[in-house]
């Protein structure tokens, strides 16, 4: 009571201390910030500033300030007195969405007075809108929607912005109740890309979604096709044709479709394969439908390229396929009733109506035919499902077909037995007993069973045979026994098999089998097998069958042979490869290289070519003494086609010389310098050379081919150290001459004959032509050079000075290997050559002749 009085006094005091109403409402201070919006989980500081006037009046300062949130005093630890008039409070990790914060002072030590109050709103800044997508419903304006992100607890505005490259559209503001979508207020413009994005904004921030840029035509949801109709075809009972009208969007874009259908009473839709309806159309024929069946259809469409959205489904439309002839005969039965007329009986034929899926149309009537034994056919047309007829006591065959608009069904056949029919059942004979239920509306499904009056053992056993015989197993097979010999129900089979010396083994096999595999057999063994079939009354053996298991299993031989063959093949291959790799070694040891004389060549060099002392570094590779004597003899043939007899003679001489110098220094060319009978060009290395070649039969050949396919103009004699016998052409110079003649007749070139010799080259390579060799011989020592000159001077003594000079040139040049392809010059023969040759017969060296003169040696 006292407390109450105190409060009343305080209140009155306050009331009376205020001078006016305005002053009464005037706050004693204020809080900053005034209306804060704080992010949830963040810190917040508010400052309360007292007015001086109030402070003086109440005798308070900032120290007297205390804070309350939602009427609860905030602990003083959170206060901070900034100065005499201001005090702040700090809240960490704001979690409440809505806080009432008041700044209070305690006046007179006991009266709490509220100075100012604010409301703190908490929330979250907007998240970036995601999944922005737009749709253009045909005939309507574009609508975009997005995922706004988390709840912000604040009022958040979403603005859909859109623009072209050249134009900006008005913002689309969302409605408060649907903040996740917005429909623009302008018509969509197809085929112009538009850029769209969303801005989300609240008191805590503004955020923009990703921009999307698209052609509105790619976001179209067309209106569904309309006026869908279904029509059938009289020609084909399995098709229905749909037609519809496309929406007006078709004038802008091409469409594709989904067509679904179902039978009237079905609930599940079937769909036409989409690839069949992937292009713009206004009709489609659905195939493989059942005849005379009602189908329901619906269609939808979308942009052909799949961009955009499917339209809604069209209104459903239905149609019935055309009739087809009944696919099955109606099942029917008969009832026989006694007739009043003697010799006749009343037979009622009854049948079932076909179900729609078999009738394939409306059944118009039924056609019944009756055939009596050896009598003619009688046809009756019946509209009902039963028909009564008086028949004689004979046996009849009745047929029934159902007919619709298209055609008739297959016929159902029924035998009506004769009146006095009685069966004589025999033992061990199989009977098929069929029972057909007859209901009021016709017969039901018949059931059949096989039966024997009495069983007996089979009259014949099954014949067994092998289907496949392996090393350790055999597959046996047999045929089911014919019904006539079964004499009962075959319960099982027994297979007996044995070897000649072994015990018989029996295996029981179920009667349903016609095949059995005997396993664990011994290989390469003769087996005897027989089989018995058993009824309930006993069994009967079949004939015996023999077979022999093979020694090897299938593929066993191949498994052995193939690897062996492969190994052999591999070995052979490796051997061949080895031989191929080591062919030089093998060739060296087994058959050394035998030169082919026919491939011998001799180089040509020209007396016109001045000797070149080409002592280059390359030439130095030849050691001293490798090249000692060189003589060159040229035989020039006359220009006429006929060979000179002197030439032939000289060739004979060569031949003779070859024989005479055999074992010493053989060969035509070789003898020119190596034989003692040829002092003119003999050299000091003669003997040495002879020794080097003593093991071989050296001979010369006459090369009658041009260098590198050039037309030969000269006949070249070359020395060879081959041990190979001379070829015919070489041994018969006549032939050679003939060839030469032929050549000369072809080419009207001046004919020359070179006879060149390299007597002392140690590393003999007999089949290398002189020309080639001369190229190889690249260095000659001074001694050789002097000796060569000496030889030349010897020759020149018997020749004209001019000719000698020429010869010198040739000899020296050749000796130093200066001849190259392009440097070979030809000497022309002169007419006097023949005479000179004759004079030279002893040395048998043809003479080198220069144009305009001939120098005999």
């Amino acid at each position, binding site marked *: 009571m006292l407390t109450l009085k105190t409060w009343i006094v305080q209140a009155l005091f306050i009331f009376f201390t205020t001078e006016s109403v305005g002053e009464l409402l005037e706050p004693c201070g204020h809080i900053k910030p005034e209306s804060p919006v704080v992010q949830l989980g963040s810190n917040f500081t508010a400052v309360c500033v007292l007015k001086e006037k109030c402070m003086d009046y109440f005798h308070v300062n900032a120290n007297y300030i205390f804070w309350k949130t939602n009427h609860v005093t905030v602990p003083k630890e959170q206060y901070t007195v900034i100065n005499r008039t201001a005090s702040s409070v700090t809240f960490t990790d704001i979690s409440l969405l809505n806080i009432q914060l008041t700044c209070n002072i305690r006046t007179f030590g006991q009266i709490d007075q509220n100075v100012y109050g604010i409301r703190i709103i908490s929330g979250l800044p907007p998240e970036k809108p995601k999944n922005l997508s737009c749709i253009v419903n045909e005939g309507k304006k574009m609508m975009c929607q997005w995922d706004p992100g988390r709840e912000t607890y604040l009022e958040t505005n979403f603005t859909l912005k859109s*623009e*072209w*490259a*050249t*134009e*900006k559209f008005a913002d689309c503001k969302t409605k408060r109740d649907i903040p996740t979508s917005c429909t623009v207020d*302008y*018509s969509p*413009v*197809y*085929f*112009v*890309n*538009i*850029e769209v994005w969303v801005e989300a904004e609240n008191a805590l921030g503004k955020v923009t979604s990703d*921009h999307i*840029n698209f*052609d509105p035509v790619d976001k179209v949801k067309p209106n569904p096709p309309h006026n869908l109709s279904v029509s059938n075809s009289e020609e084909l009972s399995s098709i229905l044709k749909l037609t519809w009208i496309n929406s007006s969007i078709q*004038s*802008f874009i091409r469409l594709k479709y989904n067509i679904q259908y179902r039978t009237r009473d079905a609930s599940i839709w079937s769909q036409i394969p989409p690839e069949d309806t992937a292009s713009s159309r206004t009709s489609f024929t659905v195939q493989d439908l059942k005849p005379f069946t009602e189908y329901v259809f619906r269609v939808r469409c979308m942009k052909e390229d799949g961009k955009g959205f499917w339209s809604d489904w069209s209104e459903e439309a239905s149609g019935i396929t055309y009739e087809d002839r009944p696919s099955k005969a109606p099942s029917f039965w008969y009832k026989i009733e006694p007739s009043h007329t003697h010799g006749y009986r009343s037979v009622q034929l009854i049948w079932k109506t076909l179900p729609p899926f078999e009738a394939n149309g409306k059944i118009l009537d039924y056609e019944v035919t009756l055939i009596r034994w050896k009598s003619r056919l009688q046809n009756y047309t019946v509209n009902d499902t039963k028909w009564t007829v008086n028949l004689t006591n004979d046996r009849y065959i009745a047929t029934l077909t159902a007919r619709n608009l298209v055609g008739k069904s297959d016929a159902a056949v029924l035998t009506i037995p004769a009146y006095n029919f009685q069966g004589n059942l025999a033992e061990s004979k199989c009977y098929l007993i069929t029972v057909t239920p007859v209901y009021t509306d016709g017969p039901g499904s018949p059931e059949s069973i096989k039966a024997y009056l009495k069983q007996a053992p089979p009259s014949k056993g099954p014949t067994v045979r092998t289907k496949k015989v392996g090393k350790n197993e055999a597959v046996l097979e047999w045929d089911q026994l014919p019904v006539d010999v079964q004499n009962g129900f075959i319960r099982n089979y027994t297979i007996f098999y044995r070897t000649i010396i072994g015990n018989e083994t029996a295996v029981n096999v179920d009667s349903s089998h016609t095949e059995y595999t005997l396993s664990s057999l011994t290989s390469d063994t003769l087996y005897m097998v027989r089989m018995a079939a058993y009824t309930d009354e006993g069994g009967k053996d079949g004939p015996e069958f023999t077979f022999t298991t093979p020694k090897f299993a299938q593929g066993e031989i191949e498994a052995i042979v193939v690897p062996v063959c492969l190994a052999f093949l591999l070995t052979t291959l490796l051997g061949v490869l080895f031989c191929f790799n080591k062919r030089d070694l093998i060739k060296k040891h087994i058959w050394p290289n035998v030169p082919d004389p026919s491939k011998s060549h001799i180089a040509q060099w020209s007396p016109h070519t001045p000797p070149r002392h080409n002592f280059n570094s390359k030439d130095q590779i030849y050691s001293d003494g490798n090249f000692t004597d060189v003589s060159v003899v040229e035989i020039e043939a006359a220009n006429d086609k006929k060979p000179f007899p002197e030439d032939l003679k000289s060739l004979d001489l060569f031949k003779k010389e070859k024989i005479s110098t055999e074992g010493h220094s053989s060969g035509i060319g070789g003898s020119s310098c190596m034989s003692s009978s040829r002092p003119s060009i003999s050299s000091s290395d003669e003997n040495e050379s002879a020794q080097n070649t003593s093991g071989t039969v050296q001979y010369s050949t006459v090369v009658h081919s041009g260098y590198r396919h050039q037309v030969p103009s000269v006949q070249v004699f070359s020395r060879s150290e081959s041990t190979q016998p001379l070829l015919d052409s070489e041994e018969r110079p006549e032939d050679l001459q003939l060839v030469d003649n032929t050549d000369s007749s072809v080419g009207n070139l001046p004919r020359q004959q070179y006879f060149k010799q390299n007597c002392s080259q140690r590393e003999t390579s007999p089949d290398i032509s002189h020309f080639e060799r001369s190229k190889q011989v690249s260095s000659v020592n001074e001694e050789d050079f002097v000796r060569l000159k000496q030889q030349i001077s010897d020759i020149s003594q018997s020749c004209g000075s001019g000719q000698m000079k020429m010869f010198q040139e040739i000899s020296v040049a050749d000796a130093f290997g200066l001849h190259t392809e392009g440097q070979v010059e030809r000497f022309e023969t002169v007419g006097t050559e023949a005479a000179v040759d004759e004079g030279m017969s002893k040395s048998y060296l043809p003479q080198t002749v220069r144009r305009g003169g001939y120098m005999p040696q």
Partner: protein
Amino acid sequence: MRAQLMRRTLLSLVLGLLFLSTPAMGSCLDNYQELLGQLQKQADFMQHTSMLLDPYISIQGLDKDGLKEHCQERPGVFPSKDVLQRLSRQEFLQILNTTLGHVLHRLRTLQKDILKAQDLEKLNIAKLNIRGFKNNIHCMAQLLPGSLEKTEPTPTGPGASPSPTPISDAFQRRLEGCRFLHGYHRFMHSVGQVFREWGQSLSRSRRHSPRRGLRKGKHRTHLSSRNKRLMPRGWLPR
């Protein structure tokens, strides 16, 4: 040669100024083929008289026998197909842009005679389509290479002349509007054909050259990135 250069410079200046007036907006489609396809399709559906002429005739009551015959294009109002085909691509785009600007202006005039909101909506859609077309022209101009293809002087044609002098007679005014729209649809048909020729020449050039599109080292390479705004620069270099 000098005159030609001067002419090109002037053309570039005109087009540059034309598009300078356009504020920097969203990005253009940077695929030449796609953009050309869009232009073709736009021209295809804008040539249909159902877009403008037919409703206009119906609205203005000109769908009477004997009146339709008078609704024929007035020669010289729109460039002929022949003229359009002879223009270089840049010139063609410029003419197209200018002509469509005039069409827009004329449609605003025609709008005054349309009272029904439903009809106005149709007209507004048509205008928006034309603005969209102009947008694509702008984008195409940025994709084209800087060189003028045709160097020989070509008559630029009159273009769609600005709205004629006001006609006091209401009927004549309607008839003029009808003729104008008739010419507009014919013009768009020709435009579609020219764009189709562009497509054909592109496929031909592709057969002969592996170079993709017509971008020829121009600044604009990837316009899809949204920051590629229309820069204030000469529309046609050179």
